[in-house]
Each structure stands twice: as C-alpha cells, then as structure tokens.
C-alpha cells in the first residue's frame, strides 16, 4: 500500500483562535510500498500529529488536504477505518502501556477479535502463536502469563505482537526504542527488519536517534514547525550539517566524520551506514578493501 498525503493541515484548538496551534501546515508526502521510512524533527514539530492521521486517530478536516493509503481514501467520510487499521498497525511510544489483557494470549488475540471476528478459536490460536514467535517469545512459556509480570523488553514485544497479529502491510512506530537499553534497541531494530522481510511491506518510524535513522532508513523526512522541510535518503538529509543543526536535529556520527574528513580533503561517499562508511574508509584511506 502506497501512502500518499497531499496538502495536509491540522490546527489544535480551532475553536479558540488565540490559543490555536497550527500543528501541520500543508504537508505533502508520498511513501512507496517497501520503504523503511524515517520521520525526524524536534519535539513539537508535528511528527506525532502526522502519524496519528495515518490510521484515522485524527480525521482529515474539511478543506485540510487528503490522505490515500492503498485503496483507502481517509479524507472520505465513508472510509472503512476498521479495515484500514487491520492493515496499518500503529505502535505508540512506550507500547507496553497499551497492554491490558489478563494473559499474554488474550492481549495479543484482541486484535483478531476486533478486526477479524470471523476467525474461530483454532485459527486465532495459530495467528497468536505466529505473532509471538515472530517477536521472539516462546509461545508455550508466555501465553498464560499476565503481561504485567514480564520484563520491560518482553512487554514491548507482546505489545508489538498484538499489533502485528493481523499481519498489517504497513507498520507505523512512534519512537519505539525510547527507554530501551543499547542491546534492547539493537534487537528491536533487528525485529523490525525481520518483519519488513516478512509480511510488513512498509515501515514508518518516528525517531530522535539519528544514528538509527542513518543505519536503518531507506528514506526520511524532516518536520519543522508543522512543515516538511527536507526529504531524501539519510545521505541527502545529512549532507549539510549546518542545516540539520539549525533544525535542532543533531546528526549521525558517520555524517560528522564524513564532514570532518572533507575538511582535510578526503571525500567519503557512503550511504552513512556503519558498514558503508567503514568500506569507504578502507577504499579512500587504506588502499582498498582486503
């Protein structure tokens, strides 16, 4: 499913003019099927308001632009949001706070009860088992446990299982790694790539971690004051560090190193992933790869 957003605007507190805040200002953006897409920008730049539009949590206002996701027209009042939400999964910040079931099984199965009521008990069990195994949990060990007796990292996995149980084609995640330790973070991105190679065709991720964006995203967009100010590959976005700095973004370590080497006349032309950068260093500074 292709995500196509045209001229989207949104104002919080429209009723009280003096207090209203323009959170999105004429945003146009197309995300193709298959992308691992990053959304970056300072706190308050409109990132979360934008992604909340993608599954209809915030509806497109009258004369406020349009959103098309695959065959769904979100600006149309007759849009089947329930069906859309089974195909576009949304993972919020601190997803473990979304858990509510008595058992891990109930929690993960909720998505099926909600979106696929036609599934019988047997089919439900197969789907729940698949989802839990996909996120790296042992089905037999965790299914009857209360989600609240699991560790933080495991809770986050259960929450993700509850979202992917309907096999969404698009997975949208709002800062999914905040508060995870370094290993937890690495494992989480490995899980996203595993899902991306499986039934999830498009990943859209909001992140403050520029190193993670450079390492994982095929393309990204920068929000500032509700507008899209920059769009492209990580390499294109971080080609001018002064601009990204002025947007309050910071930059990946690889982009910083590339800029410093340029000052001494060494042109490193990599995609800003660690492996890409290391290979370029071998080529340019160490006489080729062994």
């Amino acid at each position: 499913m292709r995500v196509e957003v045209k001229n989207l605007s949104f104002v919080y507190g429209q009723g009280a003019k003096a207090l209203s805040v323009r959170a999105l200002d004429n945003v146009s953006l197309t995300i193709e099927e298959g992308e691992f897409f990053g959304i970056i920008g300072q706190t308050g730049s409109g990132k979360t308001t934008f992604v909340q539009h993608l599954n209809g949590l915030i509806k497109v206002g009258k004369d406020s632009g349009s959103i098309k996701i695959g065959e769904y027209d979100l600006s149309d009042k007759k849009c089947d949001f329930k069906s859309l939400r089974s195909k576009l999964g949304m993972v919020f910040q601190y997803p473990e706070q979304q858990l509510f079931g008595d058992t891990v099984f109930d929690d993960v199965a909720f998505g099926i009860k909600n979106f696929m009521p036609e599934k019988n008990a047997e089919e439900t069990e197969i789907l729940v088992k698949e989802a839990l195994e996909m996120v790296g949990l042992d089905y037999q060990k965790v299914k009857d446990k209360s989600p609240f007796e699991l560790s933080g990292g495991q809770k986050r996995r259960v929450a993700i299982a509850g979202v992917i149980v309907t096999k969404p084609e698009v997975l949208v995640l709002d800062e999914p790694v905040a508060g995870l330790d370094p290993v937890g973070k690495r494992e989480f991105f490995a899980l996203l790539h595993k899902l991306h190679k499986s039934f999830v065709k498009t990943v859209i991720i909001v992140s403050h971690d520029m190193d993670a964006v450079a390492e994982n995203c095929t393309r990204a967009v920068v929000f500032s004051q509700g507008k899209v100010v920059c769009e492209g590959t990580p390499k294109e976005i971080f080609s001018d560090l002064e601009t990204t700095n002025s947007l309050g973004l910071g930059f990946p370590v690889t982009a910083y190193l590339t800029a410093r080497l340029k000052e001494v006349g060494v042109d490193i032309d990599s995609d800003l992933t660690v492996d890409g950068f290391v290979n370029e260093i071998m080529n340019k500074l160490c006489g080729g790869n062994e």
Partner: protein
Amino acid sequence: MALLEVQNVSFSYDKLNKVIKNVCLSVEEGEYIAVIGHNGSGKSTLAKLFNGLQKPDEGEVIVDGFSVHDKKSEFEIRKRVGVVFQNPDNQLVASIVEDDVAFGPENLGVPRKEIGERINFALSAVGMEKFRHATPTRLSGGQKQRIAIAGVLALKPKILVLDESTAMLDPKGRKEVLDVVNKLNKEQKVTVIAITHYMEEVIDADRVIVINDGEIALSGTPREIFAQKDVIKGYGLELPFSAYIAEKLKQKGVSLKSDILDQTELAEALCALK
C-alpha cells in the same frame, strides 16, 4: 565521611527477590558519576534508595551524615538529594513556571523572601529566566525538563540524581539538559549521579558504575570501563557509537589507537590517516 555513603545495602520489593544486593558505594562532593546497566538491572531502584524514597532492607545509606533509617532525617535528606525522573510531564505540578519551581522550597518552609531568590537562582541556572511566567504545558520537552531540574535546584541540593532524565528528549533538548548539568557540576560543585542508557552521556563522567543483576559489576573511569568491551557486552551494554565504529575499522585492519571514545577523537584519528 563521603557526602553519600551506601553501605552493604540490599533491597527487595516483595521480600523474596533481592533487586539490590550488598551494594557499597561512596560518592565524594563534586563528583560526576554515571550509572549504566541493562533494563531491569536495578539502576532506578538504587536511585530511589539514595534519597530514602525506598529504605534498604539491610545496610545503611547516609547522606551528609543523616541516615535514611532515621525518620527525623527525612526532610534533611530530601533537601540534600534532588531526583529528576524520565518524564517531565509527571514532575511538573503548577500551571505557572515560577509556582512550579517554588513548590519544593514552600514545602520545606523556606521564608517567602528567600523563595524569590531561589527561583531566580534556579531559573537562571537552567537558562529559563525568560519563561518565569510561562505555562509549563506549552513548553518543549527540553524546556520542561529544565524546569523540572530548576524545581529540584530550588531546594539547593548537594546531590542531583538524574534517572534517565534525557530519554524522552530530542537531540537538542538532550544537549540543553546535559549542558546545564555539566555547568552545575563544574561551577556550583553540585554532585551529579546520572543514570542513563546513552553511552555518549557517560564519556564525560569522573566515574562510571556498571550495575548488573542488582550488584556493582564494574567501577572506573569511562576509559577503563569501555576498554573492557567484551565484559560490558556481557552485561547487556555496548560501546559508545564512535568507539563501536572505531572497533569495526580496527577489525578490518585500520590502525587506530585503542581508546577512542567520542566522535572528535575518532575524526582526528581518521584525519591523521590521510
């Protein structure tokens, strides 16, 4: 005696599973200590033991001569140890910035005139004087967290404990908070104990403490700690990102010095290869 003495402290929430096991730690005035460890290692529990939010089952915590076991010392300890938590939205209590900052000293019965002085001091320390009459909910994450720190500074604590206080902030907000904390440590000699998952935030600390399974597993300077890369990986931690890239280059046979920690050092080493 050191400013903060943690002596053979053990603690459990349920009287069954010890989450802190026989921890000994002394922190001198003016030190900047970073505490790292994987999720669930006991870091945040330890932070709550520093100011008596939790009392040790065994052992003793002494802050500036006051024991946490002594009920009468509670206010004296809270005055001396200020804790800033992860989410600023959970720590702001008033609808105007200056009222929020005044909340702590008012509770301690500080005279009215002095409260005004403390608000001035705290807001200027975090660079938020201009926002004195602003509404906290309308500030950015980094600004809110600086107000939360100001609220703690208004108590004039000797020890500032930061429990993942930058985890929810964007890169700019994180830098704002870290700059303020560094300045307080250097200029006001405030002792800092920073719990974090960002290995980059650890590099400037005087001492790093690695917590694993409720115990102090390692303690040393950042260079000493990150030199033991296999050991810290075993504790579920990683190298700072620049050190990780340096490691990758070395594996490919690039000759770099062994103790690169931050991006400036790595950039210099790479430029020197030219």
